[in-house]
């Protein structure tokens, strides 16, 4: 009887949680959220971030679609829960060895950490817009990216944005759905971001005309279609269905846009004071190195592939190594957070199964 009670106590005490380390690679939203959850469960969590600050792209964004919630407040919420998590900034993984059922990970700062499970959450990079030379990013004076615009919303500093722009344009699908750029996939979040930013820029410059050049508007999430309606109805954003084929600069440093208005079947030209390129998502710069070190499978674009695309997305092809967030493909922020929690549970189940 006593032994039964004792066994039951041990079973419920989840002692496996106290005796195992988990390493998390990437200090963006999904890495942070998974750290918080695993830490709460009782694991010893080590978070590794290659940048000099936590938060990933979220730390650089101003407001989030569809409700324009401040990115800062979401990040603060997430960071509140990682108190007690040991994290390393400016650090990368140097090497990894598998000893029996445990990984031994050596970091670039010389630290060695043994871990039972590893979560890869290294996220994404923005597509480098200068690669689409025909749009003139880095060549013309008034061409910026979605990230530059968020930075301007945050800081108010950007010389490329003139005082009173009369016409502003947004180009969707920059580096996405583009075989010439090497990325056939849709980056998923740029449509909603463009519509959000079009509204915000109209708030900043009420007298400006705002144009969005799109191929398909993929407003798939809750509240996104409403955001689109709001942009049309309340902000008067003009949506033109056609891909911008080229951009030129005139003598006044304005931008002359060429596209086809495919709905009327006519080529269209418009002169703008500011052009915003919606740079899509690509695999993170360090994902190739991590894939190599850990022998992880990636797809043709360098994103990690889970065991399958529906039921076992969080499980990598290697025992004890898991994925969360945009390192497996473009994701929205809530999706990344949900995946982080799912990965935390998957890791807990995995470690428990080893006992």
């Amino acid at each position: 009887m006593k032994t039964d009670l004792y066994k039951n106590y041990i079973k419920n005490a989840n002692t496996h949680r106290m005796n195992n380390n988990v390493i998390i690679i990437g200090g963006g939203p999904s890495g942070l959220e998974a750290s918080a959850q695993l830490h709460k469960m009782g694991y010893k969590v080590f978070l590794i971030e290659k940048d000099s600050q936590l938060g990933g792209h979220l730390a650089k964004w101003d407001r989030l679609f569809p409700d324009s919630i401040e990115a800062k407040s979401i990040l603060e919420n997430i960071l509140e829960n990682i108190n007690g998590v040991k994290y390393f900034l400016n650090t990368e993984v140097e090497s990894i060895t598998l000893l029996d059922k445990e990984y031994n990970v050596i970091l670039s700062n010389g630290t060695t950490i043994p871990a039972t499970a590893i979560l890869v959450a290294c996220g994404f990079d923005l597509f480098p817009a200068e690669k689409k030379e025909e749009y003139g990013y880095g060549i013309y004076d008034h061409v910026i990216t979605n990230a530059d615009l968020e930075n301007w919303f945050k800081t108010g500093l950007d010389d490329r944005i003139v005082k009173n722009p009369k016409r502003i344009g947004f180009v969707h699908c920059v580096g996405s759905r583009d075989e010439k750029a090497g990325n056939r996939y849709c980056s998923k979040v740029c449509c909603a971001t463009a519509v959000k930013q079009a509204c915000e820029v109209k708030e900043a410059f009420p007298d400006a005309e705002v144009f969005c050049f799109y191929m398909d508007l993929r407003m798939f999430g809750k509240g996104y279609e409403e955001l689109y309606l709001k942009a049309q109805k309340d902000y008067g954003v003009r949506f033109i269905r056609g891909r911008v084929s080229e951009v030129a600069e005139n003598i006044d440093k304005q931008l002359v846009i060429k596209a086809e208005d495919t709905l009327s079947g006519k080529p269209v030209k418009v002169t703008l004071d500011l052009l915003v390129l919606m740079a899509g998502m690509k695999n993170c710069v360090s994902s190739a190195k991590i894939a190599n070190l850990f022998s992880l499978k990636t797809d043709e674009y360098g994103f990690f592939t889970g065991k399958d695309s529906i039921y076992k997305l969080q499980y990598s092809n290697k025992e004890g190594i898991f994925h969360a967030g945009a390192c497996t493909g473009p994701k929205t922020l809530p999706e990344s957070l949900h995946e982080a929690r799912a990965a935390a549970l998957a890791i807990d189940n995995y470690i428990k199964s080893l006992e």
Partner: protein
Amino acid sequence: MTGFGYSLTPSSRINLDDKDKEKWNKLIDLEPDVLKCMACGSCTASCTAGIFTKTSLRSAILYLQNGQEKQAMEYVKSCLLCGKCFMVCPRAINTRHLLLSISKIYTLK
């Protein structure tokens, strides 16, 4: 049939039941990439002839898909074969080659 002294205008509706598939299937055999078009309009936007004439490969593909060959030809007959559309196509369709195949199959005059 008794004539009532008036007639109806012929329907302008696209009738996919009547589409002659022979030439279209021949085109697909020669140019399977024609099916990749997502109608973004890059080709038309960059077209050298498109500003002055109604040249538009995107429109031509759409009309051919709908079996409207006559209308389709209107959109390609002024093509200069400069190949600029090939450079901008995001689905990497060899548009210049496609235009030549269209002209071969649909015998442009």
